[in-house]
């Protein structure tokens, strides 16, 4: 084989601590290497042309590029060598940036390591074979997981483009956190007025199938051809029949069920529709509080239901859907402030979270939109807001900024003044983070027009004195301790990843960070893609986000899906396992270990059984290869011979 080696300087990223010239000249001594050079930016257009020129000029049959991580530029170089007439798999990359130059300063050691990595890549390349992909049809149906504003936006965009969309929502209603908000910053427009029509669209579009009160059970397949199992949780109400008339709720005798929608501020009935504008507007029974389901005599709802929709025998059911792409928009949860012992740890009824206050402000909330405090229903006069509760706080494991609290506090303080002109609002803050369009002006208005008293400092302790709360904090600008007596304290609880985010990520085979937020493929250039092809992200599941950003991401993910669905077929990845039937001993171990069910028995003439790989299902993990006793099953492009060649070079 005639091999060419191209060592990238990457400006000074690599050349700063690696002698790239020496790496290239050393490479010339490796077996089969006939050409080697170093280049300033190999990924640039002239850099790629240099590779193509060398292929022609030196009759190269294989190419090694020593540069960055293959994650970004392996596709670039594969395309480049392909244009020059080579098979794209006759190419290898040695990572001498992330694995060498960025992690060490010792130039000599770095250079030596880079030489070793290049030698290994060359050794492997000598065993490479041309591989060819085949084409698979794309199923142009989209699955959207999560029915918050990001998921709704993505679903509507794709449905508008004529695609079939399946939406799965864990709760019994769509709308997510936004459905609970009263108004939105910085325009103070009514949240349900702008979200409501979109929610209705989801329910009315013929090409959107909505599974509410449902969760993802399992996902298999790959880009263009996913199979999804969806668990429809038992709601004990036949939604095909339910008209949402609300008679059952009215008559339900279990009046102390948890009111999740109102964040525990009110009480719900065991059978209910969470809020008047709920989509789907269907009743569901909370089994924990239902008398009938807890062995008591009741069944009132079943008796009053005019369409006999109540079904106490209902069980969870599983439905299967086939889709070609998945948008994950599972949103976020709010930090539980009971971690803050100094703020009463949830023991004081008049120390509430921001989302609870949002429900208090809402006309459809527990107090009909009148600001009252939970303990005694009195109208508060002094209201203290505390920012960064569960944000920027390493002591509770949340060192990141939640990004939305500064704004929602300003909004709530403004609304408070609107509702109760005689009241005083105080905001304890560390910094004000308001970088969005018209955001900082909004925070200034809270202070200048609405007279909200901003105090720069954290609060150390909250405790009751009489029927009020004492808020003991600091004004660091003045360098003094301050005390505010408050009737109501609102904690700006921060954003955390959605409960169960990790489990769903494992089903989707996408990565997530230490806080449970899903990882995008590239923080700048691939913001809505994941590392699993065909799976995209939208909204706060990827990190704390406000409504405009979530909506923008929903549309961005939708456009990614539309460009995928613009093709009728996609190329399969040929880097899959392959069985050599002559050496296969039919032990079946590979079938047992394959995590994807990609290997099955194949009956030859004479009834002999051999293992067979389904190339469209195989994910190329290599477990079968490692398990196979006679090494009859080999993962293409990472065969035993190829890996051993690398190891031999390293140990030589």
């Amino acid at each position, binding site marked *: 084989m005639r091999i060419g080696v191209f060592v990238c300087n990457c400006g000074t990223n690599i050349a700063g601590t690696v002698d790239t010239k020496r790496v290239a000249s050393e490479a010339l001594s490796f077996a089969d290497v006939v050409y080697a050079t170093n280049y300033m930016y190999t990924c640039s257009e002239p850099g790629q042309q240099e590779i193509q020129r060398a292929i022609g000029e030196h009759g190269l049959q294989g190419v090694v590029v020593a540069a960055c991580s293959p994650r970004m530029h392996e596709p670039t170089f594969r395309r480049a060598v392909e244009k020059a007439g080579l098979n794209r798999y006759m190419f290898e990359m040695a990572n001498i940036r992330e694995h060498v130059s960025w992690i060490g300063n010792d130039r000599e050691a770095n250079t030596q390591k880079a030489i070793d990595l290049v030698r290994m890549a060359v050794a492997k390349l000598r065993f490479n074979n041309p591989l060819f992909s085949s084409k698979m049809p794309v199923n142009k149906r989209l699955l959207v997981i999560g029915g918050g504003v990001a998921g709704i936006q993505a679903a509507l965009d794709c449905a508008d483009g004529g695609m079939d969309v399946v939406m799965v929502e864990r709760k019994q209603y769509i709308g997510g956190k936004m459905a609970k908000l009263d108004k939105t910053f910085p325009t103070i427009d009514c949240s349900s007025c702008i979200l409501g029509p979109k929610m209705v669209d989801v329910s009315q579009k013929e090409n959107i199938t909505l599974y509410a009160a449902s969760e993802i059970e399992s996902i298999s397949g790959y880009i263009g051809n996913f199979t999804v199992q969806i668990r429809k949780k038992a709601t004990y109400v036949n939604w095909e029949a339910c008209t949402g008339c609300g008679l059952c709720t009215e008559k339900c005798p279990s009046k102390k069920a948890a009111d999740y929608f109102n964040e525990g501020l009110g009480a719900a009935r065991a059978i209910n529709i969470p809020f008047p504008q709920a989509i789907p507007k269907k009743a569901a029974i909370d089994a924990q509080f239902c008398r009938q389901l807890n062995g008591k005599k009741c069944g009132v709802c079943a008796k009053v239901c005019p369409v006999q929709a109540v079904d106490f025998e209902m069980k969870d059911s599983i439905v299967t859907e086939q889709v070609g792409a998945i948008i994950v928009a599972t949103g976020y949860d709010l930090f539980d402030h009971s971690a803050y012992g100094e703020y009463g740890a949830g023991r004081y009824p008049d120390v509430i979270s921001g989302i609870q206050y949002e429900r208090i402000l809402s006309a459809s909330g527990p107090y009909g939109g009148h600001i009252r405090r939970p303990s005694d229903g009195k109208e508060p006069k002094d209201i203290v807001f505390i920012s960064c509760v569960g944000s920027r706080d390493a002591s509770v494991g949340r060192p990141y900024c939640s990004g939305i609290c500064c704004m929602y506090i300003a909004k709530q303080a403004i609304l408070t003044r609107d509702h109760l002109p005689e009241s005083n609002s105080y905001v304890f803050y560390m910094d004000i983070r308001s970088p969005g369009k018209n955001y900082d002006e909004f925070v200034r208005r809270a202070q200048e027009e609405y007279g909200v008293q901003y105090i720069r400092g*954290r609060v*150390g302790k909250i405790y009751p004195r009489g029927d009020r709360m004492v808020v003991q904090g600091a004004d660091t600008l003045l360098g003094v*301790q301050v005390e505010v007596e408050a009737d109501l304290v609102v904690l700006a609880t921060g954003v955390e990843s959605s409960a169960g985010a990790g489990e769903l990520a494992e089903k989707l085979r996408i990565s997530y960070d230490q806080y449970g937020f899903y990882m995008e493929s590239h923080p700048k250039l691939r913001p809505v893609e994941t590392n699993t092809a065909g799976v995209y992200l939208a909204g706060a599941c990827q990190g704390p986000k406000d409504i405009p950003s979530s909506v923008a991401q929903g549309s961005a993910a939708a456009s990614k899906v539309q460009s995928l669905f613009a093709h009728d077929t996609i190329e399969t990845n040929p880097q899959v396992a392959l069985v050599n039937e002559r050496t296969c001993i039919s032990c079946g171990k590979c079938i047992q270990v394959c995590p994807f069910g990609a290997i099955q028995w194949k009956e030859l003439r004479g009834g002999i059984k051999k293992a067979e790989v389904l190339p469209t299902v195989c994910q190329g993990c290599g477990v079968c290869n490692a398990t196979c006793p006679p090494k009859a099953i080999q993962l293409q492009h990472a065969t035993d011979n190829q890996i051993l060649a690398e190891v031999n070079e390293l140990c030589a």
Partner: protein
Amino acid sequence: MERTNTLSIQQSRDNDFIREVEEASGQTVSKCYQCGNCMASCVYTFAYDYPVTQIMRLTQLGQRDTVLGSSSIWLCANCQACTTRCPQNIDVAQVMETLRVMSRKANTVSQRDIRVFYDEFLRSVKTFGRVFETGLLPVYNLRTKRPFTDFDLAPRLMWKGKLSFLPARIKKRKKIAQIFEVIKRDRFSKDGKARPEPLSSQTDI
């Protein structure tokens, strides 16, 4: 300490000071983001010349003299409220403790009476192995020229039988005295900064 309202950063920043504080306290001073929670939680803020948050800030800026001469570090009771509530997990009380030790070594203790009390306390421990409460107070009162401190308590305590007139002495007093001597001998050599404390009999233990 008198406050200054102007500061030339380059001329006044003592980087060694920052390093010494971090090494002795085991805390990273630059972690402090000035949220003010320590100041908010400290029940002694009313008495400090610089609230804790500002002590942390002055330390970040390497203001050795201001910090070691402040009243705050000697009025801190080490009650741990700051440490308990620091969102950045800084052991602020430990930083304050380190500053006290440094201020003793540099002989810049701003609160003479507190130092006298501590000295007499340690002298009592060194002599008897335990603290002789009844003996400690008169010496302190004499040395701080406040002869009547706590005299109002004496009759009742006497009546309750809580005042002893003889110190409790332990047997191995020599061992205790030896610990004191070794510490005194080594405590400057450890950090290599031989800036010995003036050894007047008045201020040394």
